């Protein structure tokens, strides 16, 4: 019981810290579109562990000595909205990912920070005076992509460089089927607690805006054309499946069109997915 209470307090504390950090991040994450230009403000990534520790401090003092419980609390925080009895769409990353718990604004109350998934380069942070440092935390962070984020109440030294790879804007991008048929547009992109993109919301069908159908599609189902930034994305599913898929509902674990096992990493192989 006290653990539950502690977890709730932890959740509240984390939410506060995230709000503060978002506020201090300014409006960078609130722009409707990120231009696909090469110039990107890249924060030197740092391990998120000190920030987590900062939040955990009051709790780990008192009730939660067990690391596993603490980790669960953190990942629960990310999914703290009510669970609506749908198929959970997570895999291993969901329980491991503790780097950050931001979510896209459509799935919760927080906006996504600019998701510059930089390589984890542990640079020394300006302020590292924390009394309680949890042991063994960095080890598990190495598996999850680290999202650069401004520390609560502080800034990191950012620098402007060209993006080493070319990038494309996703919002509004056309989606076509394997035979070139028009399947609609990407209207939203959802990331999981670790900041990894998991779902594309595709606006499908309709006529003049009447009868559109928004469908959540597992990110690996979308194929990118590396040769052209203008090329539409290719979604290798049967139109029939897209048509009968349930409409996307704004909840933390949406019903998602995905491969049967849904563990496959994104591949560039344009082979059609197995049907049904």
């Amino acid at each position, binding site marked *: 019981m006290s653990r539950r209470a502690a977890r709730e307090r932890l959740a509240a504390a984390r939410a506060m810290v995230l709000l503060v950090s978002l506020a201090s991040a300014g409006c960078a994450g609130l722009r409707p*579109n990120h231009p696909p230009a090469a110039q990107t403000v890249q924060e030197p990534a740092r391990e998120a562990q000190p920030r987590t520790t900062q939040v955990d401090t009051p709790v780990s003092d008192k009730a939660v000595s067990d690391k596993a419980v603490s980790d669960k609390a953190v990942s629960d925080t990310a999914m703290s909205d009510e669970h609506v009895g749908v198929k959970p769409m997570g895999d291993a990353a969901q329980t491991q990912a503790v780097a950050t718990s931001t979510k896209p604004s459509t799935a919760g109350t927080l906006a996504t920070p600019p998701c510059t998934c930089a390589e984890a380069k542990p640079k020394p942070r300006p302020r590292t005076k924390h009394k309680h440092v949890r042991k063994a935390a960095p080890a598990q962070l190495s598996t999850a992509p680290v999202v650069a984020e401004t520390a609560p109440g502080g800034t990191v030294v950012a620098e402007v460089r060209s993006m080493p790879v070319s990038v494309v804007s996703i919002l509004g991008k056309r989606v076509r089927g394997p035979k070139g048929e028009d399947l609609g547009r990407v209207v939203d992109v959802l990331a999981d607690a670790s900041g990894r993109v998991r779902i594309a919301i595709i606006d499908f069908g*309709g006529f003049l*805006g009447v*009868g559109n159908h928004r469908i959540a599609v597992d990110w690996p189902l979308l194929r990118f054309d590396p040769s052209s930034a203008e090329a539409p994305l290719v979604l290798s599913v049967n139109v029939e499946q897209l048509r009968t898929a349930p409409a996307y509902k704004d909840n933390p674990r949406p019903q998602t069109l995905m491969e049967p096992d849904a563990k496959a990493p994104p591949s560039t192989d344009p082979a059609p997915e197995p049907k049904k």
Partner: protein
Amino acid sequence: MLEDQRSARASLGLDGFNLFVANIQTGFGPFIAVYLSSQSWTQTSIGLALSIGTVSSMASQVPAGALVDLMPNKTRVAAFSVLTFMVSALMFAIHPIPLFVYFAEVLHGISSCTLSPAIAAMSLVIAGRFGMGLRLGRNARYAAIGNGVGAALMGACGQYVSERAVFYLTAALTLPALFTLLPLRRAAVAGAELRPARRLPGEQRTHYWRVLADRRLMIFCACAMLFTFANAPMLMLISGTLTAKGTNPSLLIAACIVLPQIIVALASPAVGRCAERYGRRAILMLGFSMLPLRCLLFAATQNPTLLVAVQAFDGIAGACFGIMVPLIVSDVAGRTGHFNLSLGAVGFGIGIGGTLSTPAAGWLADHFSTRTAFFGLMAVGAAAVLLVAFAMPETRPRKEADDAEKPP
């Protein structure tokens, strides 16, 4: 005779104006959401833009009606509204940044509210109070043709050219609309002495509160609100079913939009005539009772072809409702000096019904089933029918009054 020629040309001009305005309004429909998605807008911003449009049109209904009452030249109001449409379409097309889009939504919302009373007022000037039913039948016919043609044109444009081109097309269509106003300008000046807003040339206006508190107007407003509440989400629910069941959903949805317009175009003049012959209540009953019938049939079938066919009833309901709104308001308030204000008040009720119902029906469909939503809407539609049957008085002006009031 010069006078007859003028009024015939004015009548034709008004036909054309209705047609082009309906064309233009198609461009400002739900298609905006598709266009903004294609411009990398987030769902949140799109929702905000559409809400701004809804709120500004709701808020300006009544004030815009009052404003049009005060303007002596309704043709000028109509021309100005159409020009505003052009500006707002161009803002969408040229530079869809949030500030412009929000501003364009506000402009469009307000000018829609000045345009429809202006059209009704011009109709009243051209046709007079006793030809109003016929005139409104013609208005509805040409508006339906405009809607159907506009949907086809803009659907093709969005599909084969680009989403942006739809808004250039919308802006371009304002030019012929302005052109059709030219003969009306003369008619409005010629008809200045039989201005419909006054009871008699020397008489004072009735106090606006007495007009708005008229029992007939209030009951009709409630009827219209209930009807719209039940009617507005139907297309959304049907197209959801069609998307899941049909083989070519986009085409079927297009058919669901265009078919009722064809029926409206065919039936409107007859509806207008019948309204003069058999009275308003009968037509209102006929139109409103289509709605529960439609709900029942939709709940009973899942066959895509049948779903589209049942939409024909929407055409009948649409023809009756579209003609009855300005007609009943002109019966009640036509000579009080507050015709447009009253029309705005009814428009406000209709707006409330339409705004509240889509989320309500969506909630029912999500949490229970589409069929439950249809039954819910059927109950509301039946309530509207009952309200007409038991509370709504006949508003058709009596023929004895004809000779006394008819202009010499």
